[in-house]
């Protein structure tokens, strides 16, 4: 903007922070020892290049304007070693979604733990391999990004350091009756954990992926990446719970490539971590596809929740819906940056994006930047954003009927986020998410 002097000084780089130096040293020392070895080191280096060149992104970088990673990441935690028996026992107690019927793959401190997981070959028509095996067999291709902005730093860090994860291939036409639940648990004093799930769906396949992130109070740094590649007419449902300990820094990237007539539905509930940033990069590459991206977030104290998404329409007749809701208490801050891009020729695109923030305390802060970037004329695109407190009249209505203030607030917030969470079809899963929301409404942490 005309008043900002910040943009003009964007190229002035301060001296490297301790975290940046540590990351550089760490990368140099582990690069060749990580799974895949030298065969994939080019892909890892490519990922680390933006950090090596420019350091961690700060508020002077437009995409990170409201989430200053350089300030949030004061130290770089060491990579976690393999989990001990005590770690595994502790992790077992933290696992969510016990009542949800799904095949489970559990990662403790970033490493796959077979004794907590179901067999990987339990889903019909689905091949599930561990990432290290895929790296050994297939080289760095699985680390090569698609659909990511050039030099994206969070995904870059993931490519540089990721040691474990899953490579999932759903055969054409396969429609397994159970979902796959990838659970990530962090236990210990504080470490860095990187995970990656790469899923490819054949034509006409349908699949449900559940992703959960939980952990103890350690100062962990987690960085996850999920890539989804949908062939024509494939359907994918993704449900994510981010409920990490309140000292954790959570970075997550979702990238999806959608073929013709595909359907993607993604829902995320963010209730944990000190600071979290979820990035979504979705691109429509075939005609008549649709995507529904939704999210609900809760934050109290001094927590920070960021949702950043770019939806790129590069095909005809595609529809996208984005709906994100956040409730904030204490001095928490929410960030929503959403961008719908319609490429030249992507006619008949229908895009609608909505971001809503509810401020429950005087000092909470909400920043929103909903963008449209449109290069085709026969489209219907819109976005809306609202920021505000609870409606006094609604509160009064409830209180006049004898409901105490706190309960009345909880009811209204529950209704506010319920709109998003109630879209989950699997009943035990929906109940588990609503239950988590209800717990936040009591604790407001």
């Amino acid at each position, binding site marked *: 903007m005309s008043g900002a002097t910040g943009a003009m000084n964007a190229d002035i780089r301060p001296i490297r922070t301790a975290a940046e130096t540590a990351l550089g040293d760490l990368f140099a020392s582990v690069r060749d020892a990580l799974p895949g070895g030298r065969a994939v080191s080019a892909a890892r280096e490519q990922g680390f290049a933006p950090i090596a060149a420019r350091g961690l992104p700060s508020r002077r970088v437009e995409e990170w304007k409201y989430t200053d990673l350089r300030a949030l990441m004061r130290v770089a935690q060491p990579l976690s070693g393999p989990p001990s028996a005590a770690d595994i026992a502790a992790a077992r107690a933290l696992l969510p979604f016990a009542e949800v019927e799904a095949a489970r793959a559990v990662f403790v401190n970033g490493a796959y733990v077979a004794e907590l997981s179901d067999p990987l070959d339990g889903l019909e028509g689905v091949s599930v391999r561990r990432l290290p095996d895929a790296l050994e067999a297939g080289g760095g291709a699985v680390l090569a990004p698609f659909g990511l902005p050039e030099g994206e730093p969070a995904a870059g860090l993931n490519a540089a350091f990721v040691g474990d994860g899953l490579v999932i291939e759903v055969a054409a036409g396969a429609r397994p009756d159970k979902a796959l639940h990838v659970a990530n648990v962090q236990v210990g004093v504080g470490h860095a954990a990187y995970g990656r799930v790469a899923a490819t769906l054949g034509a006409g396949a349908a699949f449900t992926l559940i992703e959960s992130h939980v952990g103890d109070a350690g100062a962990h740094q987690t960085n996850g990446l999920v890539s989804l590649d949908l062939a024509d007419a494939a359907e994918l449902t993704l449900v994510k719970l981010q409920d990490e300990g309140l000292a954790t820094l959570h970075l997550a990237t979702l990238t999806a490539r959608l073929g013709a007539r595909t359907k993607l539905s993604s829902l995320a509930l963010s209730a944990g971590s000190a600071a979290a940033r979820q990035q979504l990069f979705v691109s429509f590459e075939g005609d008549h596809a649709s995507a529904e991206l939704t999210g609900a977030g809760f934050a109290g104290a001094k927590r920070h929740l960021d949702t950043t998404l770019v939806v790129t329409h590069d095909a005809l007749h595609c529809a996208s819906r984005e709906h994100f809701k956040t409730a904030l208490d204490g001095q928490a801050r929410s960030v929503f940056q959403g961008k719908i891009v319609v490429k*030249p020729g992507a006619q008949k695109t229908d895009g609608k994006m909505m971001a809503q923030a509810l401020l429950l305390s005087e000092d909470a802060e909400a920043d929103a930047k909903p963008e*449209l970037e449109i290069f085709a004329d026969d489209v219907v695109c819109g976005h809306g954003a609202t920021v505000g407190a609870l409606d006094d009249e609604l509160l009064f209505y409830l209180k006049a009927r004898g409901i105490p203030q706190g309960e009345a607030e909880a009811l209204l917030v529950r209704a506010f986020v319920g709109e998003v969470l109630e879209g989950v079809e699997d009943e035990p899963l929906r109940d588990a998410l609503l239950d988590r929301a209800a717990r936040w409404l009591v604790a407001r942490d």
Partner: protein
Amino acid sequence: MPAVQETVARVREIDVDQYKYGFVTDIESERAEQGLNEDIVRFISAKKDEPEWMLEWRLDAYRRWRTMTEPNWARVDYPPIPYDDLYYYSAPKAFVAPKTLDDVDPELLRTYEKLGIPLREQEILAGVEQRRVAVDAVFDSVSVATTFKAELAKAGVIFCPISEAIREHPELVKKYLGSVVPTTDNFFATLNSAVFSDGSFVYVPKGVRCPMELSTYFRINERNTGQFERTLIIADEGAYVSYLEGCTAPMRDENQLHAAVVELVALDDAEIKYSTVQNWYPGDAEGKGGIYNFVTKRGDCRGKNSKISWTQVETGSAITWKYPSCILRGEGSRGEFYSIAISNGRQQVDSGTKMIHLGKNTTSKIISKGISAGHSQNTYRGLVSAHRKASNARNFTNCDSLLIGENCGAHTVPYLEAKTSTAVFEHEATTSKISDDQKFYCQQRGLSEEEAVALIVNGFVKDVLQQLPMEFAVEAQKLISISLEGSVG
């Protein structure tokens, strides 16, 4: 809408490449030497007979500007501007500030007549129906005529070229100049602070409602010159003023630079309404030539219950980089922004507003209508922020874009920052094309396709047109049709 037939007829008369105001006035002029250095700044200051403090102020800005880099975040694309090859001062030769209109070079008066600007007071007075408008006309770098001065003086209103204000009202200028847009603000504003040559100055004293609309017409005539005007408007407690600004330039193959600064100050209970019809030469259909319009406009609602309203119709310029903003400092103050930005051919528009809520109970409203046609790119970029102490801040934003043709782009980049829970922000934006249904409906009732588009577009921008003073609204409506010529079919 009766205007439709007329506008369509008028559009037909005018070929798209025949920018109506594209003629050059053949008048001898005096220019400063090419390039920019401290001597040029001294030269401009000396030409204007400025006091020492003003020269220092300029030099300060100049030295700072040398350390700054051009901003590149806007969605506009242009070759590097050769700042050191431009002329920073141009004035009609042997220019002596005119005492009456009879002293003004008749060639200049003819120019303004061609532009349709009523400089001659008598003519206006003769037209009984017409409302009276006081005009300050700026030709290249100097103000050539200010009308109705005597009558305004009776009401206590000061309306004069800013160069005159620096000499005659230094206490006001010193107090307010640079207090809204500091010399350090941004690259283009700093450049302007160093080399601005003229512009308008308005002071409306306490409790005075300015008896007529004030208006400035800017004209760039000379080749390779930059125009840097500076406008300062102060509405003292309880005052009201409505100010109109219009701009044109000849057609030239080269691009010309226009970097203006406008500062508005509204004290307690004051209201300033600022309207712009910007019709600088947009370049030809291939994007050759045209004005680079890099403007910093900002209003400061300094007093309680003050109000500043910006209305703009942007049809011209090859590149527009402009964000008229309001700083809502005073308790209960209000900011408004109404904008129509139309781009056709190869025009690039990056425009919007900033509403910065600092005081309690401040409100703001943004209505932005962008229309892109041809190969143009049209971006709305805006910020609404409420600071911790701005309790009960309220904002409503609506920005709609209309696309005509498949080679243009329409973009929306709003920033919303709420730091207090009592703030209520609502933002909505849509992008669409003229629906076939609407067009069919109109055509079925006997309108041609062009008429139908003109009618629909006029309806699309109606909310904003209504905010314009009468005579501007009519002018703007016609401009809109002309700007969109060639975009249909």
